[in-house]
């Protein structure tokens, strides 16, 4: 387990080395580390941000120093505490044995209207993958996904589990504006544009769900570790749900 500074007010814990090899195992280890660090409530700790193989701890150095961290070595003080927390009882990344079950793991179905008007890159994805549009839709709906990480824009889920056959490179020229709710494929990942934003992924449909709502707490529908599948809906259902 490697711990490196992320500037003077944060650090990155590399929980596992590889993501692509076994995304599930990597994610379980990262989420287990996140829970343990949350529970430990280190002095001066302000935020934890998981992403694929790593987790960042954001801290207030002034608070940490007041709590006893030596000014000459705030980073090592945190790193040592983190190692103690993550290596206690059993290591977080012991081949997944200890982290097989993730308590509170959620399973969420996302309704998607796959129509050319909303999924304006369906034709291109079909052409690239040498499938019909319907085959693309069926395959996208049949797979099981997992949120590896939330970011890019608030509430944007990066999903692992895209069938290899659907992998489509990002567009060479990103679009200036993609509507909120757009479901898209970027390389070997799929994701959902949670807010209106620029973007380079291939849009294949749109969900009426509002994935990010600042009036709610938590503000995002999805979080790292969630299991996700897509359910095709008709245009009528889409319009009704959007109201």
């Amino acid at each position, binding site marked *: 387990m490697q711990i490196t500074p992320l500037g003077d007010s944060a650090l990155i814990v590399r929980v596992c080395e590889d993501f692509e090899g076994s995304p599930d195992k990597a994610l379980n280890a990262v989420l287990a580390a996140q829970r343990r660090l949350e529970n430990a409530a280190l002095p001066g700790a302000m935020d934890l941000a998981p992403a694929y193989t790593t987790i960042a701890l954001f801290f207030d150095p002034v608070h940490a120093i007041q709590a006893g961290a030596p000014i000459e070595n705030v980073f090592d003080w945190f790193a040592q505490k983190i190692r103690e927390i993550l290596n206690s009882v059993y290591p977080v990344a012991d081949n997944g044995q200890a982290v097989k079950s993730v308590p509170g793991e959620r399973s969420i179905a996302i309704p998607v209207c796959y129509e050319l008007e909303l999924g304006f890159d369906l034709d291109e994805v079909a052409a690239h993958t040498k499938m019909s549009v319907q085959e693309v839709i069926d395959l996208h709906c049949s797979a099981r996904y997992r949120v590896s990480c939330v970011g890019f824009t608030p509430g944007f889920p990066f999903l692992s589990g895209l069938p290899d056959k659907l992998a489509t490179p990002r567009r060479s020229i990103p679009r200036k504006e993609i509507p909120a709710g757009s479901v898209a494929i970027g390389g070997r990942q799929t994701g959902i544009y949670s807010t209106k934003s620029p973007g380079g992924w291939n849009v294949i449909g749109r969900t009426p769900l509002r994935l990010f709502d600042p009036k709610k707490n938590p503000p995002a529908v999805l979080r*790292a570790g969630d299991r996700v599948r897509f359910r095709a809906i008709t245009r009528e259902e889409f319009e009704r749900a959007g109201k």
Partner: protein
Amino acid sequence: MKATIARAGFLSTVQDLGRTSLRQFGVSLGGALDAHALRVANLLVGNNESDAALEITFGGLQLRFSDERIVAWGGGEFAVRVGSTHLPAGHSVFIERGEKLEIDRPKTGCRLWLAISGGIDAPLVLGSRSTDLRANFGGFNGRPFRDGDELPLGTNSERAKILISKLRGEKIARWKPPHEWSSPTRPEPVLRVVRGADWDRFNDVTIQRFTNQRFTVSPDSDRMGVRFEAPELQRSRTADLVSEPVAPGTVQVPPSGQPILLLGDCQTIGGYPKIAHMITVDFPAAAQLRAGDCVRFREVSLADAHRLLIERERNLQQFRRGLQAHFS
């Protein structure tokens, strides 16, 4: 209990100290790009240091007050006036009912933070009053001000009321914080950095270039980050990395080789190599950078970064204690 934005200027938003604990949902820190300037300006008007204030980019703003207030500002080299009275940075100033405050374009630097006693009474959204311009929420309806907007203000604190009675005559307070707190703009600043996780991915020549040459700020810089035009930083390995958390202050190097210094509105994760991280006490200088400005980067140790931060924090505590005398 309000101020009217007679002219909104180039880009003016409500900001406080931002959203510090929602990164797992992809919510940016946001907040004042120079958090220290915001804290100092708030203290000068009798507010809590985390209260919401205005972040004004490139000036052009006119603000009319409907009641008596204390204001204070800090940031770039701006001309700030009420009628024919010039308002210097870093001083508490009494504003009468109906007076109009005008901010011109800056000579150097690009942003200022204007605190108003009582604070900006924008609703708390996800724990902060800051405007998130990427996702359009928080602050004033999730957007920059427009001409004619009415800005809701909070109630003057007891401390502000005492200042109002004291400054009614002389208008501008005589005391002020250290000069660099309210006027942090410097020609060709040296931004101090600590090594990033990917420092070793760059060869010696590139590291030499990074720490020795001048970098010019590109026009497509914004609250997300300062982009630099030249010189290019070559990466020894070009493979894209798995995305990892990034933070304001991170200097990342995209395939173009032109580094980006991330600021408050940056994304929470990124896939570009992180060559270095600017230290916290240099955000005030970085927040003033505009197109054409030149900077240099210099490596310091993490211990230096923390020593400088603690020193500034101690000075701020002392300043806060000193202010108490004026609030009684």
